[in-house]
C-alpha cells in the first residue's frame, strides 16, 4: 500500500515540479542564467559520459578543472579505434586517431574534421557521421564495478557455507533477501517444480538493479538504470528467457486461445502476440521512467535551493530533497522488486501447466 502511495506521490511530484519548473523556465528563459545552468546540469547528469569525473570547478583564471579519471574510448569506424578519453579534454578538444578526427557533442562521439566543426540541422541535431561507440563509458565502468562487487560479495558468501551451514557476516543480512526472492517471488509465481532454473537470473537481476539504483543516489553521479539501453538489455533477457523456455501450453494460449469461439481466436492471436512484446516493453519503460523521474525531481528540488536563495525557500527545498531522497531509497528497492516479480510472473506464465478451469 505504501508503495502505491509512494509511486502515486512521485508521479504527482514529478508532474508538479516539472510543470512548475519547466513552465517557469520557458517564460523567463533569458532572465537568469542560473536556471538554464541548473537545467543543463540536470540533463548532463542524466547523460552518460566518456570519463569518470566526480566533480568539476572553474579556476579564477577561467580554466575548467575536473577531478576524476579518463576511460577508454572504443569506436568502430572502418576498423576498431581505441584511445583514452583524456584526448577529448572533456569535450574541449578534438581527438586524432590514425588520421581521423573525433569530437564530443553532448557527450556523444562524432567524426569531424581537424577543427572539430559540428554541423547542425534544423532540429539542432548534428549531421556529422556517428561512429558506432563501444566505449567503456562511465556507466559501463559502473556496471563492471557492480558486477565485480556482486561477484566478490556473493562468492565469498557462498564459500562461507562450505564450512558452516549458517550464514556469517554480510550473508546474515543477504540470506533473508535471497530466501524472500525464492519463497515469495519465484516459488508462488513460477511453481514449486520449475522455479530453480530461473533463480540465478532473478537473484542477479534483483541485486543488480537494487545496487545500481542505490549507487545512482550517491553523489558519485552514476545513473545506470536511467539509460534506456540498460533497461532494454535487462527486459530483453527476460523476454528471451520467457520465449525460449515457454512450453506448448503457453504458445497454445497465444495463438489458439482455448475456450473461446473461433472468430475470437483469430482476433485474440495478434493481441496476445503483441502482449508478449508489451510485457518486456513495460518492464523497460517502468524501470527507466521511475529512476529518471526520481532523479529529475530530486535534482530539480536541489536546484530550487539555488534559485530561491532566501531563508524560507532554500531550507524548504532542502527538507523536501531530504524526504525525497528517502523516498528514492524505497523506490530503488521497489523497482528492483517489481522487475524481479514481473519477470518471475512472466516465466511462470511461460511454464504453466495446462489447467482445465478456463
Amino acid at each position, binding site marked *: 500500500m505504501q508503495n502505491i502511495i509512494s509511486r502515486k506521490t512521485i508521479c504527482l511530484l514529478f508532474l508538479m515540479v516539472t510543470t512548475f519548473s519547466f513552465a517557469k523556465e520557458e517564460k523567463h528563459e533569458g532572465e537568469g542564467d542560473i536556471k538554464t545552468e541548473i537545467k543543463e546540469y540536470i540533463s548532463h547528469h542524466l547523460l552518460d559520459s566518456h570519463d569518470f569525473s566526480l566533480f568539476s570547478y572553474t579556476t579564477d583564471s577561467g580554466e575548467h578543472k575536473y577531478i576524476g579519471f579518463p576511460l577508454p574510448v572504443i569506436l568502430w569506424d572502418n576498423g576498431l579505434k581505441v584511445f583514452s578519453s583524456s584526448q577529448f579534454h572533456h569535450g574541449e578538444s578534438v581527438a586524432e586517431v590514425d588520421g581521423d578526427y573525433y569530437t564530443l557533442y553532448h557527450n556523444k562521439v562524432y567524426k569531424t574534421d581537424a577543427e572539430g566543426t559540428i554541423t547542425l540541422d534544423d532540429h539542432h541535431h548534428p549531421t556529422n557521421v556517428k561512429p558506432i561507440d563501444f566505449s567503456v563509458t562511465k556507466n559501463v565502468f559502473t556496471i563492471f564495478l557492480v558486477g565485480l562487487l556482486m561477484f566478490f560479495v556473493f562468492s565469498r558468501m557462498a564459500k562461507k557455507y562450505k564450512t558452516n551451514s549458517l550464514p556469517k557476516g554480510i550473508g546474515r543480512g543477504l540470506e533473508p533477501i535471497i530466501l524472500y526472492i525464492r519463497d515469495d517471488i519465484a516459488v508462488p509465481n513460477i511453481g514449486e517444480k520449475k522455479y530453480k532454473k530461473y533463480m540465478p537470473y532473478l537473484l542477479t537481476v534483483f541485486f543488480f538493479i537494487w545496487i545500481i539504483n542505490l549507487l545512482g543516489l550517491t553523489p558519485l553521479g552514476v545513473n545506470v538504470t536511467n*539509460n534506456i*539501453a540498460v533497461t532494454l538489455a535487462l527486459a530483453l*533477457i527476460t523476454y528471451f528467457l520467457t520465449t525460449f523456455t515457454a512450453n506448448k501450453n503457453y504458445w497454445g494460449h497465444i495463438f489458439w486461445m482455448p475456450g473461446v469461439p473461433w472468430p475470437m481466436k483469430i482476433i485474440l492471436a495478434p493481441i496476445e502476440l503483441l502482449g508478449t512484446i508489451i510485457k518486456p516493453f513495460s518492464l523497460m519503460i517502468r524501470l527507466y521512467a521511475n529512476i529518471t523521474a526520481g532523479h529529475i525531481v530530486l535534482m530539480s528540488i536541489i536546484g530550487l535551493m539555488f534559485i530561491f536563495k532566501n531563508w524560507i525557500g532554500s531550507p524548504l527545498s532542502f527538507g523536501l530533497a531530504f524526504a525525497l531522497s528517502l523516498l528514492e531509497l524505497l523506490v530503488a528497492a521497489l523497482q528492483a522488486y517489481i522487475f524481479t516479480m514481473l519477470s518471475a510472473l512472466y516465466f511462470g506464465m511461460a511454464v504453466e501447466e495446462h489447467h482445465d478451469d478456463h
Partner: protein
Amino acid sequence: MEKLINEFSIGLFFWQLVLFIGLVLLLRKFAWKPILDAVEKREGGIKDALDAAEKAKLDMTNLQADNEKLLKEARAEREAMLKEARDIKNKMIEDAKGEAQEQANKMIEQAQAAIESEKKSAMAELKNHVAGLSLEIAEKVVRTELSNKDKQLELVESMLAEKTSK
C-alpha cells in the same frame, strides 16, 4: 519517444548485455548454486531433525504404552498365579482331608471287622469252652447221678418226661 531513441546508446546496450549475462552465469556457478544448495541442505536437515524428534516422541509414547501394558500383564499374571496357588492349596487341603477321612474310615472299618472277628472267635471259643465245661459238668453230674440207681432212674424219668412234654 524521439528523445528516447536519440538517447539510446548501442555501446551501452552491448556492454550491459554482455556484462550482465556474464555476471548471471558467473554468479550461478560460484554463488547462487552453492548458496541455494547449502540453504536447501540446511532446511532439509532441520526438517529431518524435526521429523526424527516427532518420531522419537511417538516411539516414546508407544514405549510408555507398551510398558504400561507389560506392567498390567505382569500384574494380571501374578494375580492369576496367586489365585492358582491358592486353589492348589485349597485342593490339596481338601484332598488331604478326604484321604485322611477315607483312611480313617477304612481303619475304623478294619478295626470293626477285626473286633467282629475277634468277637466271633471269642464267642466260638467261649462256646467251645462252655460246651466243654458243660460236658465236664454233665459228666460229673452223670457220674454222680449214675452212681445211685434210683437216681439214674429218676433222671431217665425226668428226661423222658421232659422230652415227652415237649
